[in-house]
């Protein structure tokens, strides 16, 4: 099967990923002749910039056990042609989970080493979801795995779109009141577990010591929903 046939098969299996907006967005082109024209146009444009024309090839342009990169042929709002890449995970549409854990009124923060950045970040527990689990179940498993924690209560804080990025799956945010917690999981890169009062946590966000997007987003939702005030009562 050619790369383009794989792409067409994928488009048939996941029509929701190929929806075209009425106006103003980027229209995905699935007509083969038009796609070829767009590839030729883009290849010339890339060559003019000294870049390989292969960067114009439409289709599934990367794949591994975690997901795929699609390069779509598109038309921009004024009708001009182009290509656009996006990442689609293998478990399409399964959001990640992020949990803001409170223990006795303080926020639990992990010091975690990330392979992608090769540095430590201060952040709350987060990870991938699974098709086999609800987001709530995945959140409870993650608390246990990352920091040996069990939650008395788990409050959904809603959906987060992770951006700007190539992936559309996003994450489900939660707020948890912990019954107990233990050691950070070294195998997950967690080398410290901090328990901070709210003013310290806020100062660390303000001063850029906390720079993890999931952590700050979950904090804002909890704050706007008045959950920190409730935890102090």
């Amino acid at each position, binding site marked *: 099967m050619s790369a383009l046939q794989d792409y067409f098969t994928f488009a048939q299996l996941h029509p929701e990923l190929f929806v075209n907006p009425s106006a103003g967005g980027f229209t995905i082109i699935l007509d083969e002749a038009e796609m070829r024209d767009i590839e030729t146009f883009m290849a010339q444009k890339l060559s003019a910039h000294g870049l390989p024309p292969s960067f114009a090839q439409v289709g599934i342009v990367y794949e591994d056990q975690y997901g795929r990169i699609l390069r779509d042929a598109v038309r921009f709002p004024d009708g001009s042609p182009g290509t656009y890449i996006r990442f689609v995970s293998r478990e399409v549409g399964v959001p990640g989970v992020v949990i803001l854990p409170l223990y006795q009124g303080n926020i639990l923060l992990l010091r975690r080493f990330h392979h*992608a950045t090769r540095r430590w970040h201060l952040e709350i527990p987060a990870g991938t979801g699974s098709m086999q689990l609800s987001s709530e179940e995945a959140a409870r498993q993650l608390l246990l795995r990352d920091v040996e924690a069990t939650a008395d209560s788990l409050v959904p804080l809603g959906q987060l779109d992770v951006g700007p990025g190539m992936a559309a799956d996003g994450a489900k945010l939660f707020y948890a009141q912990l019954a107990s917690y233990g050691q950070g999981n070294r195998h997950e890169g967690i080398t410290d577990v901090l328990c901070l009062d709210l003013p310290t946590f806020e100062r660390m966000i303000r001063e850029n010591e906390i720079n993890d997007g999931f952590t700050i987003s979950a904090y804002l939702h909890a704050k706007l929903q008045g959950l920190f005030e409730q935890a102090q009562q």
Partner: protein
Amino acid sequence: MSMLEEYLAFARQYPALFENPPEAGLTIILDVDEIRRVEDEVSQRLAAQGFPAAWAQVGIVYQDQYVMLVRDAVRLLDGTVDTCVRSVSAAVQVPGIFILPVYQGNVLLIRHFRHEARAWRWEIPGGFGMPGMSSEENARRELAEEIGAAIIRLIPLGCVYPDAFSGADSIDLFFAEIGTPGAIESQEGITEAVTLPVQTIEQKIRSHEITDMIVLVAYTRAKLQGLL
């Protein structure tokens, strides 16, 4: 140059992306013989799951004008080995930039079509940083391009990692007091710009009409710095 040679040259060029600090728990392997052994082991594991052995290959595994993915050989804390893929796109170029624009006391949001979601989202202006320009210069350029606005006052709001699990890419955030907005950049999928009071922004975040991480983070930092 082979794929592995290219990768090793890349590692020499960007040593910060290949740091192995003590206690990291996840050591990147750069010894060629050892990399080959990891590739063999992982390819057997993949084959057992019905996946192509090629997905174990270490190197720069994807590249275009925007994105670069590398697959590293790594050793975990318990001594087991694996391969890990990460995006190092902006990290080898310059950080992205996003700006929370405030016009006459109200926050400006744009309605932006996101290709990956095939849907519109409420966002703030921003995008890739242009190499050779500082983040401040990039912020001024993005505001002029996307909403046709000049900056009266520009204040840094620090940086954010949108997803440290999958990419080394970071974004520099700014707060900007702006002059009268001009034409929006419809070619980039922006269909509308609105200015909203802070209370409305908060209500729309609470009700999940605003779900974009970058808006949430920039808003939080601006609020905690007393700028809103």
